[in-house]
């Protein structure tokens, strides 16, 4: 009993530490890659190649004044950054990042918790993530925040439909909801579900970008229209928490995407964890690449695209997949 608790807590601590470090260095990666794509050099001063930049950023944010505007609804306002950050972290609990290993005579699964409804858990947690942004927008008592909050709730509910449907294709093919079994079924490159669900993958990628509010779908915080959107009134660490939440969300959908479509930790020669990180890294690079390439959608275009293009396509994909599985 005690042993199980110890092993689980240790795993959770390691996963959380890895994800938080990942978030910090995702900001560094974003700045570097975007800079390179725009013929700049990005951060260079803090440490070699600017590698200490995330730490410098964190220190700066911690020492900033924590301003609480007069017209906010205190409790909700304070809760919102947490609510947007925690669900993203929870996703990593069910994502497997390696094969089972033997340590001190004990079989240890390289996953926080091997739920047999792992995918449902991810969907449930993702659907809770929207509250952070909605509540921040509402409780700030500012029209820009409210606009950002309303936009984002509309956007996230809309794209969640496509997000869920795009995953259903994979579930139908794999005939399981457990992420561990999904990874086991994709032992070689030929078995990757991206080959059997190409449309599903494209839909997943698009909806994931919209779900995480990244360019070209970053409506909730469109700087040129809404100042800062839902986090206009936040400063210091509260703002930092939203920021980390965004990156944790990106990492989460990248990790889930790598697991669903690219075989998770499976790969030759290198250790499984390295393969997993590489695949997540690839997703993150794609994200940043998109950000540096595309302009923002207009809001009505975004909603029309979600409901009139992505949703029917996702339905079609589900039906065709179901028919093929039946045959």
């Amino acid at each position, binding site marked *: 009993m005690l042993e199980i608790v110890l092993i689980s807590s240790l795993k959770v601590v390691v996963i959380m530490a890895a994800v938080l470090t990942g978030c910090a260095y995702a900001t560094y990666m974003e700045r570097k890659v975007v800079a390179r794509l725009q013929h700049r050099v990005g951060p260079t001063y803090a440490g070699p190649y600017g590698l200490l930049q995330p730490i410098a950023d964190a220190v700066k944010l911690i020492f900033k004044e924590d301003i609480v505007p007069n017209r906010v609804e205190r409790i909700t306002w304070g809760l919102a950054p947490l609510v947007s950050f925690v669900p993203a972290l929870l996703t990593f609990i069910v994502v497997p990042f390696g094969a089972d290993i033997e340590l001190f005579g004990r079989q240890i699964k390289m996953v926080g918790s091997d*739920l*047999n409804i792992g995918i449902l858990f991810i969907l449930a947690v993702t659907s809770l993530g*929207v*509250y952070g942004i909605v509540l921040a*927008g509402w409780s700030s008592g500012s029209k820009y925040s409210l606009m950002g*909050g309303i936009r984002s709730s*509309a956007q996230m*509910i809309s794209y969640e439909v496509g997000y869920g449907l795009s995953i259903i294709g994979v579930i139908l093919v794999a005939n399981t909801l457990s992420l561990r079994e999904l990874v086991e079924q994709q032992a070689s490159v030929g078995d990757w579900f991206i080959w059997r669900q190409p449309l599903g993958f494209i839909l997943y990628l698009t909806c994931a970008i919209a779900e995480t509010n990244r360019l070209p779908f970053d409506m909730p915080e469109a700087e040129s229209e809404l100042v800062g959107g839902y986090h206009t009134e936040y400063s210091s660490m509260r703002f930092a928490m939203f920021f980390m939440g965004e990156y944790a969300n990106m990492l989460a959908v990248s990790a889930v995407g790598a697991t669903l479509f690219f075989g998770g930790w499976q790969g030759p020669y290198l250790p499984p964890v390295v393969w997993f990180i590489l695949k997540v890294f690839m997703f993150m690079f794609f994200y940043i690449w998109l950000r540096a390439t595309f302009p923002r959608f207009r809001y009505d275009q975004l909603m029309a695209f979600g409901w009139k293009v992505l949703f029917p396509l996702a339905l079609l994909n589900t039906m065709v997949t179901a028919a093929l599985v039946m045959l």
Partner: protein
Amino acid sequence: MNLDTIIFAISAVVAVFGAVMMIGQRNPVASVLYMIVSLVAQAVLYIQLGALFLGAVLIIVYAGAIMVLFLFVIMLLNLRGREDLGAGSPLVSKVTKFVVAGLFVLELGFVVWSGVFPDSGSTGIQSSASEFGSVKVVAELIFMKYLYPFELASILLLAAIVGAVVMAGRAAVTETDESDDDDPVKEQTVDEVHD
């Protein structure tokens, strides 16, 4: 006191607390938040009973979709809890609410008194050994045994969606201000698709 009992006790108390606080709030957003708390606690109870699928669906559909819609509507109407919602209700509704509340209290008292839930040492919870409530069993029930009722229910929902769209369309025409009216309508249908 094993772990199961402790988890049950915590989530049961939280579920009831959330439900009570939900009806006791003036601020509608606070009500929604308490309801989410209650729903999450209920999901824990389902999962503890082995009904993993029901627990997950409770969070995905209710906490994740319907409650977001509630918040959305509250935000659009910009309700801040200063409105006196209970005032001036006609005598009929006052009588009705006391009668209904009284009936529920009676029902609850009857359940407790008759001992439908036996006091089986612990909480009466048993993790069922069978696959009760798992995705597979639920799917078999819905898509094999109760296929026709299930499909009929979905047609009913479809009719509701179409009805909402038609009524909203009319409202937009009469107000001649389509751009403002479009979005909330869209959201209403969004939620029903989730259902």
